[in-house]
């Protein structure tokens, strides 16, 4: 099952993302995180729509998707996939390979494992991500090549143990915390991300890094 959190996404972009994902042959779970106007997608047995009444944040949308999957005994693997067209559905197969081989419980995409993918990232964003990677290393003890990428895959063992409490973008660091806490086996695979003017406008601003650091410190204080 592929979870696609959506908030005020351009309908044409969302349609294109969902159309591309249909080719992956998995069920798609769209979580509308309180968009205005509400997301309109053609619901079918393969496309499920969950709707938050108010906007909570990407972490909350993913947790809602995982809560849905926990109750569905037929879901063995979950993929988190951004709706803004940044990711390539063809990368999903790479994410799933370590799960199928039983080598990992959670697999993260990384934009820093291949030179070509790394160079696609705008320089300022690259710097912020590397600082984020160091921050994650300090607070979670997990050393990864990338930070805060929305493309990852989890097996049932992982999504039954992981429970996100951070509603907004700090969830990505919290998720690593939980990977460490539950001793989940993790893996990284190279993935490509395309930065379009739309995705850059829609995505996180570099200043948001400070909000994430603040949220994590507050989480440490108010566990």
């Amino acid at each position: 099952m592929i979870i696609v959190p959506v908030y005020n996404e351009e309908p044409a972009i969302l349609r294109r993302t969902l159309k591309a994902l249909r080719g992956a042959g998995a069920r798609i779970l769209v979580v509308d995180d309180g968009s205005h106007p509400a997301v309109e997608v053609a619901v079918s047995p393969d496309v499920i729509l969950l709707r938050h009444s108010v906007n909570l944040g990407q972490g909350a949308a993913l947790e809602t998707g995982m809560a849905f999957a926990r109750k569905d005994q037929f879901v063995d693997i979950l993929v988190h996939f951004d709706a803004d067209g940044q990711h390539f559905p063809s990368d999903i197969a790479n994410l799933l390979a370590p799960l199928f081989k039983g080598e990992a419980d959670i697999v993260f995409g990384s934009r820093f494992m291949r030179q070509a993918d790394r160079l696609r990232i705008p320089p300022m964003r690259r710097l912020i991500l590397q600082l984020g990677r160091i921050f994650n290393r300090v607070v979670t003890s997990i050393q990864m090549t990338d930070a805060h990428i929305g493309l990852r895959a989890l097996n049932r063992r992982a999504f039954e143990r992981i429970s996100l409490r951070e509603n907004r973008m700090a969830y990505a660091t919290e998720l690593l915390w939980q990977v460490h806490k539950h001793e989940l086996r993790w893996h990284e695979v190279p993935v490509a991300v395309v930065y379009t003017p739309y995705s850059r406008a829609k995505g996180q601003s570099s200043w948001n890094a400070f909000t994430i650091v603040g949220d994590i410190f507050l989480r440490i204080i108010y566990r």
Partner: protein
Amino acid sequence: MEPIQLLLIIAQIAIALVYLKLTRYRFGTVLFLATLLLFGVLAVYDPDSTTVIANYLGVERGADLLLYATVICFCGALVAIYGKFRKLDEQHTGVIRELALLRQILERNEDA
């Protein structure tokens, strides 16, 4: 007694009573509030008495001691209120999530 002293004492007692009612007269809270109220009333009725305590603690003026205590109490209240706010926020998220899941079940059943 000056009119302002009377007003301040009445205000302190009123705040303490409202707080007590909100916390349903728990013993610990009653004891804490009674002590705080006693010091508060004393500080208003006889301001010089705070200087005695201040000198004992190494502070020159009673007014300074009151200012320090107020700042600490304010910060403490802020931390406690923010903790409650976070808890409420998590509960709010939980309700929205349950609603989203229930709505999906309802819509699925309607379609069926």
